[in-house]
């Protein structure tokens, strides 16, 4: 049988801070398990409040953090075995990351096309500039841009949405099978947000890329996710088919999360505008 694309098995991460006197232990990720099938690309969403361990979990999947316990396998191979430079490069070509703030991901003094070219050289062994340019242009087309539009431009000359698309194009240069996107749209406004979200859909449907989508935004999660898990204090409290879970959450924490979502439709539900002022308790 073909191994899964990704297996996360009873994974734990414990951070210890401080000296002997004031040791602080944080159980950032606590016994988390899930798998992504190899032959079924999907958008797998991780939802949870600030500090619930989402980024830590992503870091372990990207093999930039080592689990304190449990195992993560990519295509059947334990990530701990991936150590040599060659193995690491090979792994990174399959698993790519996209982060929250596109402006942080690019050095303001460096032209954005240089990032794409260096990815082409690094992962695809494009030896000639023409081969690299072709590769880069192909990735940019997948995100609705082109090399002609991007060439020679600095980050400040692009909008947040364009820059986030360039970041995704860079991630696509190596033809990855998994993209881990940590809050990729929370800094982006509503109109551009849908550009990026629709792009994830397209990557899944047309290019067979699986996406781990980490977010606070339940509405976009509902819109694109196939499955999701909800995390609280490092643990998965609920998981399953995204629309089923979001439509009728079961765990008290998921219900609380669902109720905190501000909806445009509910805003004028109570036409009398009466009722008590909420206490600011959370």
């Amino acid at each position, binding site marked *: 049988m073909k191994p899964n694309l990704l297996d996360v098995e009873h994974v734990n991460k414990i951070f210890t801070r401080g000296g002997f006197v004031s040791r602080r232990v944080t159980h950032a990720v606590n016994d988390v398990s899930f798998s992504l099938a190899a032959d079924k690309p999907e958008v797998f969403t991780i939802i949870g409040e600030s500090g619930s361990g989402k980024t830590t979990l992503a870091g372990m999947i990207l093999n930039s953090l080592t689990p304190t316990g449990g195992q993560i396998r990519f295509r059947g191979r334990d990530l701990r075995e991936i150590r040599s430079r060659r193995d690491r490069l090979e792994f990174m070509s399959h698993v790519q990351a996209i982060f929250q703030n596109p402006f942080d991901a690019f050095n303001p003094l460096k032209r954005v096309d240089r990032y794409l070219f260096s990815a082409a050289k690094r992962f695809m062994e494009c030896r000639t500039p023409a081969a690299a340019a072709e590769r880069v242009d192909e990735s940019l087309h997948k995100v609705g841009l082109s090399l002609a539009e991007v060439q020679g431009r600095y980050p400040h000359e692009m*909008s947040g949405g*364009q820059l986030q698309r360039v970041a995704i194009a860079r991630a696509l240069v190596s033809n990855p099978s998994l993209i881990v996107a940590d809050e990729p749209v929370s800094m982006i406004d509503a109109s551009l947000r849908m550009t990026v979200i629709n792009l994830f859909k397209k990557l899944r449907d047309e290019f067979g890329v699986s996406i781990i989508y980490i977010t606070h935004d339940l509405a976009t999660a509902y819109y694109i996710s196939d499955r999701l898990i909800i995390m609280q204090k490092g643990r998965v409290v609920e998981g399953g088919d995204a629309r089923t879970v*979001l439509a009728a959450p079961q765990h008290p924490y998921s219900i609380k999360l*669902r109720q905190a979502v501000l909806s*445009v439709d509910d805003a004028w539900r109570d036409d009398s505008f009466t009722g008590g002022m909420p206490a*600011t308790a959370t």
Partner: protein
Amino acid sequence: MIADLRSIPSSVELRAPQAAPLLSVDRLKAYYKVKLFGIDREVRAVDDVSLKINRNEIYGLAGESSSGKSSLIKTIAGAIRPPLRVVEGSVRFSFKDGERDIYKLSPQELSAIRWSHLSYIMQGSMSVLNPVRRIKHAFADFALPHVAAKGADFTHLVEGHLKRLHLDPAVLQAYPHELSGGMRQRVTIALATICSPEFIIADEPTTALDVIVQKGVLAMIREIQQEFGSSVLFVTHDMAVHANLTDRLGIMYAGRLVEEGRTRDVFKRPLHPYTAHLISSLPRIGDEAPKKALEGSPPSLADPPPGCRFHPRCPLAIDICRREAPPMVELLPGHRTACHVAQADPARVRPVA
């Protein structure tokens, strides 16, 4: 469970219509003078904006990033620094103790109205808290000069204010890093409102926060507004926040105000094609219909397109849009829009889903 944020009667309906607006912004232009590749350029971040904010209302300002929201409110707060300059227009407040024209005040007069009359919660305002000093020192540094109370009376005042905002006075002993992001944001709001300012400006105060924390912070802002009868200018690109919090809403596009009305009217009956798109593209839980993103990208404010700045992306654009900038016109009571097509026939502007 946290209750509905929109729990008071809409102040827009209750207010006597003849009451003078607290803030009047008139034909305001504020440009960044920058050098691009050795050439002097103007970035027209605020270009001919007029608006009024009434007493006791929350006025929302929406628009995509770099549409000029932050530049506009910095200009309103009198908090501009070069290269941003006011080129034309005026910003006038009519506070309870008299009128103030922000750009006719001396720096001393301006700093005298800060805190007491006008306070500004900045984007990323966590940075006002010094990481190596306890929270109580932040209150002493910022607020002590502006209040009559000193010593134990001052501490008493601060504790009372925190309690009123449902914050435990124990936070005064904490260092900023010991507090969660949401708690820090609430502390900065408490700090900004300790002198019961008449006008509060908040720039994306909840953008980095998760949904649960966000709702708590928004409830706090609503409560402060009610308790002190302040007016709030609330800026965010998050339309769901506007729908749930603000009384009136202004939409900015490329340095201009393109639509303004009661929040409910703007959502239910947008009169500008940009707003119509913005609203119909919002994903909603329970709605599986595909949502189209707006094609193209926002224009450069150093070299904006002629005529209506939205015309290169507008599905309704006609010839005149490419030549003449549409004026802001009141099409329905209290509902203004800057669109040639809507002004000719409002029914042409429809959700684009």
